[in-house]
């Protein structure tokens, strides 16, 4: 083997693409790090370390007095109720819009029939509506709605319903489009209606994923109660806010443990629903 061939073999054929990718990554990453004020050493400054240590030491032991646990239980129930009611209302918004938006359920898309342009316009309108619903943070919705409903859980529930309706609708449509769409297409081509194509063509393949995403959003709605504490909606958020403001670490850690329990509950629900729908 002569030297030129040996050199050619030793050369990494991917060298140029790899070097380019690395360069692009650095060029993109650098301004990002500057903008986000990436200063990991701030974590280890003596002052910050002391504040954090004092705070974390305060977390132990978690408060387990009967009085606080009673309060916690009541707040948890209220948070669960708000999340459940919010998701139920969000479904009212998300399901019809996702049904309109799902491209694989479009009859006019199959052939050069009438209504092609109208269909596309409707889908685009639904997309933009969902986008506007979820782009405005739930906190802002809640503050607007407080004007009408007054302080209390009502504004929080509606705010969850609006933002989560926007997210659920979009993701439902995406799940329905990325699952196997051939049965639905076959049904539509054979002349079935949209609802039948959804129920018999798309849902059997996508039901599990739809269910677990809905449960995941429910879990997020439970966490969103922290935001809702701001509008006096009660629940775990308000309790957390009070404990943090009074720097009562023991109470805060009990509340965080409750959040962990709720996540485990959501996991359990999701797994059993998936098994049921399998």
């Amino acid at each position, binding site marked *: 083997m002569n030297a030129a061939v040996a050199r050619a073999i030793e050369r990494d054929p991917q060298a140029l693409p790899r070097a380019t990718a690395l360069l692009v990554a650095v060029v993109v990453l650098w301004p990002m790090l500057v903008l*986000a004020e990436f200063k990991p050493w701030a974590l280890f400054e003596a002052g*910050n370390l002391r504040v954090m240590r004092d705070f974390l030491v305060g977390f132990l032991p978690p408060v387990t007095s009967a009085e606080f646990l009673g309060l916690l239980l009541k707040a948890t129930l209220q948070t669960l109720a708000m999340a459940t*009611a919010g998701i139920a209302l969000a479904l009212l918004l998300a399901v019809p819009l996702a049904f309109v938006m799902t491209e694989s359920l479009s009859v006019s898309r199959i052939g050069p029939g009438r209504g092609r342009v109208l269909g596309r316009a409707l889908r685009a309108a639904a997309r933009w509506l969902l986008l506007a619903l979820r782009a405005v943070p739930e906190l802002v919705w809640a503050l607007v709605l407080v004007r009408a*409903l007054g302080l209390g859980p009502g504004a929080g529930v509606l705010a969850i319903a609006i933002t989560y309706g926007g997210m659920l609708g979009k993701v439902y449509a995406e799940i329905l489009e990325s699952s196997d769409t051939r049965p639905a297409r076959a049904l539509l081509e054979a002349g079935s209606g949209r609802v039948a194509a959804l129920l018999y063509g798309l849902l059997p393949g996508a039901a599990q994923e739809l269910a677990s995403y809905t449960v995941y959003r429910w879990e997020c709605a439970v966490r969103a109660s*922290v935001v809702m504490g701001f509008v006096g909606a009660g629940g775990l958020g308000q309790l957390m806010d009070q404990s943090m403001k009074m720097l009562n670490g023991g109470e805060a850690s009990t509340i965080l443990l409750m959040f962990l329990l709720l*996540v485990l509950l959501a*996991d359990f629900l999701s797994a059993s629903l998936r098994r049921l729908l399998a």
Partner: protein
Amino acid sequence: MNTGELSASERATAAAPCITCVWVSLALLAAVVASFVGLGIDYSGLFSADSLRSMGRFVAEFFPPDLSAAFVKKTAWAALQTLAVSALGTLLAVLLGAALALPAAGRFGSAARHATRLLLNLLRGVPELVWAALMVLAAGLGPFAGALALALHTSGVLGRLFSEALENTPRDAERALLDAGSGAAAAFAYGALPMVLPQWMSYTLYRWENNIRAAAVLGVVGAGGLGQLLSFHMGLFHMGKTATILGAMLLLVALVDSLSYVWRRWLTR
């Protein structure tokens, strides 16, 4: 299940209406009804002329948005910062999530698996706002605290999704490499990683999209970006400026949304 082996009577049972489903649906319905009743929300306020007018006045105050050059520039800067915070948070979360996904997928034994899963659940269970409040204490006010908070919460979510993807991937290629004498790290990098990478990428993009929205809210606790601007101006009732900021959020979400739409199209092509 192999349906070919079922007898006619077994198939008949399988096709019978699912009783459990009926019970579960009823239970879910009962939970929803109980929630509404328990909260005792009076929604009549939504439809009374008086409160509608009050809400309408509030919304009308948002117009016209403040479009003076100086403020638009400030908003654009904050939007860039939000973008940077969300991207950095997601990037850190990918690194931490991938590191935790390996033990969580049972690669280092069953004890490590359970311990990591609990850790992932804890990371995910603590809301972003609470993480942000803690990180502001640890790293001081500013966007870096927001990025850390996003990273901690998101690594809990991603670690779990990554580990599930890893567990569901066939290990034949990796085992073949190991049998041929390659090291464990090389076998993972060349045998397992290429198979899960597309799925990991799509989860990451999806979380990044979520994190942009979350980063906008995190600013409320002093973590920089659009959120900080929003809570500042909303607190002072500068409604025109608030409207500009909300418009920027809308644009940001629309941008990321259409990017991920194009990306998904390209993936499922």
